[in-house]
């Protein structure tokens, strides 16, 4: 078949052609919604119309075969309409209540998992990892799979004080709001990069490389027509590697993950917050990262047992204090949790009103 004539600068198709009829009719005129189960909610329009939504888990990395399965289900129950969520779930919507149970039955029969709505753990926002990224120091998809297998009850049925948003970043570039999650896993390098000096001249721009370093650890190395790195200043961020491929920072034994907690993006009750570092290092343990998974599960369980209704992880910690968070969780407090980068003056305690 001949290749069709290309078009440029057309942008995406207009969204309205993909909206189900019930949504077109009630667009901007929804009155309220109710969460029925962690997998189902209903939206009610000012017109009295109702729309049921079923949310289904997805590994984000999808084969076309599975996407076609989504299409088949949408055709069978939803007149061919469906959508994905910002956290990579799939949503099927029906305006006719009699289709709801058959839809759910079909999803169950096909092995799809429903959940993630309301005070639950929804899908994990994550990055590419070893599957497809050059700067990954862990595999995000594998970590997510191992975490969610363990946290499945919180996705499907077990209620929490509020939602818990999880994220995994496979390096400190953190594609995707990892830095404001209830619990975030960030993969870290822990060693000063090595430089292939003979390749530097042809592949890198000296001022760009020097400028890329947040701690000014990089200086010119005229003898090698390259740069040198001051090991005492380097914090292993890898930004120099991003701008200059001959600088190598990967290390199989030393790369690992850190865990940060207490972030959020919404403004409900309290303002958006960054996640803060509580566990500085856990070794990479593919294929299932047992220690990292256990740590996350433990933090979720302690939160579930101690937070008040509607408190997010960060709000719970703000109330009880970080010293109490560390004592309740039993997590060792380390130097890495004290900021020695840019935020020290804002993060040290300046009063004697702490708890024992």
């Amino acid at each position, binding site marked *: 078949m001949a290749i069709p004539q290309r078009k440029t600068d057309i942008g995406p198709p207009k969204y309205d052609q993909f909206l189900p009829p019930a949504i077109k009719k009630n667009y901007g005129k929804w009155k309220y919604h109710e969460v029925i189960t962690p997998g189902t909610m209903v939206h009610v329009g000012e017109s009295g119309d109702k729309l049921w939504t079923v949310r289904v888990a997805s590994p984000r990395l999808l084969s076309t075969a599975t996407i076609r399965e989504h299409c088949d289900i949408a055709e069978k129950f939803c007149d061919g309409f469906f959508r994905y969520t910002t956290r990579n779930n799939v949503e099927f919507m029906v305006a006719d209540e009699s289709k709801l149970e058959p839809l759910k039955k079909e999803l169950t029969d096909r092995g799809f998992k429903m959940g993630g709505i309301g005070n639950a753990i929804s899908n994990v926002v994550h990055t590419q990892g070893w599957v497809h990224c050059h700067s990954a120091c862990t595999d995000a998809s594998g970590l997510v799979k191992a975490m969610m297998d363990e946290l499945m009850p919180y996705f499907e049925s077990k209620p929490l004080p509020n939602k818990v948003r999880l994220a995994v970043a496979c390096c400190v570039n953190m594609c995707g709001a990892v830095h404001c999650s209830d619990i975030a896993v960030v993969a870290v390098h822990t060693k000063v990069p090595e430089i292939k000096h003979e390749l530097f001249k042809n592949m890198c721009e000296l001022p760009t490389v020097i400028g890329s370093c947040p701690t000014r650890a990089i200086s010119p190395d005229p003898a090698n027509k390259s740069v040198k790195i001051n090991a005492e200043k380097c914090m292993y961020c890898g930004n120099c590697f991003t701008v*200059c491929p001959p600088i190598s920072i990967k290390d199989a034994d030393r790369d690992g993950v850190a865990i940060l907690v207490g972030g959020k993006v919404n403004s409900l009750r309290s303002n958006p917050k960054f996640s803060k570092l509580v566990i500085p290092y856990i070794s990479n343990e593919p294929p299932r990262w047992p220690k990292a998974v256990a740590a996350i599960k433990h933090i979720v369980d302690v939160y579930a047992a101690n937070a008040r209704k509607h408190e997010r992880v960060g709000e719970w910690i703000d109330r009880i204090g970080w010293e109490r968070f560390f004592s309740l969780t039993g997590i060792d407090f380390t130097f890495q949790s004290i900021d020695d980068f840019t935020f020290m003056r804002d993060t040290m305690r300046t009063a004697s009103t702490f708890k024992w």
Partner: protein
Amino acid sequence: METAELQDKIFAFCEAAKGKKKLKEKDIIKGVSAELSLEADVVKKAMRGMIDVGRLMYSYGGGASSVEIPSEEYLREKGMIP
């Protein structure tokens, strides 16, 4: 100035920077328009015309985008040369 002549000047500007500095669109537009006392938009349009036919190309490296003279490999891949 004729577009063809302007495009030759733009090409020469890029050639002079080759291997020394990665040029962004902005660098070319500012540099050439200052050199020839032309409106930035005129230079931009002429440069875009060159990119559209593969005389120049967008490149990416070191975490940022730039504009450069295409390699033969690129031109062959796009069917511009046999």
